[in-house]
């Protein structure tokens, strides 16, 4: 299926998604909320890769491989992050990152 898209519009959409994710990663206090924001930033990078592959990459399939490996890394990242959240919850009975201040000077 061949659809025509505007390059700048898709990239701007990915930029918007990345920046909203950045806001969430900085402003959220729940560790799970921060991880969800990181996932959105990773999805913005996915959109970017696919768009650039559609428009500029030397081989059309290159962006597919990059995206698949990005998904692997992102899945490993969120799996470890959520495991850390559960470990944190076991230890301090909260998943809010601002309440974990035992190492604060």
């Amino acid at each position: 299926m061949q659809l025509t898209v505007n390059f700048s519009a898709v990239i701007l959409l990915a930029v918007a998604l990345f920046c909203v994710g950045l806001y969430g990663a900085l402003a959220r206090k729940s560790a799970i909320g921060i991880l969800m924001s990181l996932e959105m930033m990773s999805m913005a990078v996915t959109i970017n890769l696919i768009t650039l592959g559609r428009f500029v990459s030397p081989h059309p399939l290159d962006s597919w491989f990059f995206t698949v490996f990005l998904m692997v890394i992102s899945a490993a990242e969120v799996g470890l992050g959520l495991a850390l959240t559960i470990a944190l919850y076991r230890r301090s009975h909260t998943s809010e990152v601002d309440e974990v201040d035992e190492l604060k000077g």
Partner: protein
Amino acid sequence: MLNTIAFVVLGAALILGAFSVVTVRNVMHAAYWLLEVSVVVAGLIYFLSAEYVAILQLLVYVGAVGMLVIFTIMLTRRDPRDDERPDSYSYFALAAALLLFAALAFSVVKSPTLVARPGAASTSLVDFGLQMFSTSGWALGFEIASLLLTVALIAAVWWTKERDD
């Protein structure tokens, strides 16, 4: 015309879902919105004629990551007052995000608009598989990725298991 309508609908759904993920107070509702964002991103990838990646996006983000997030929320009991606490440093986060958006949007608008290459959509899944598993292609990367996932799995089990200490 149909392209424009589909793109505007997808874009609006994406931005609405993304704002909901970061602003909704209840983490469980945010997780549902994250599922919506994942589905819309899959639609956008399909729109860019990468059908196989769109299916992978659905499987990995909606199927695996979404379920993982929801199960973690259910395993960590939340304090009900967490939903009412104000975000103390959200103005700093807002300023950082707006600055980054301004800088990136400026550079995107200033850069030349590209047109899609002819024949860019004529990529087949057979080519993808052949290149992924050929030693002159991405086979090494594939093996490293599987190793990474195994290590992540073991580490996740190690961190979350009950300890006596």
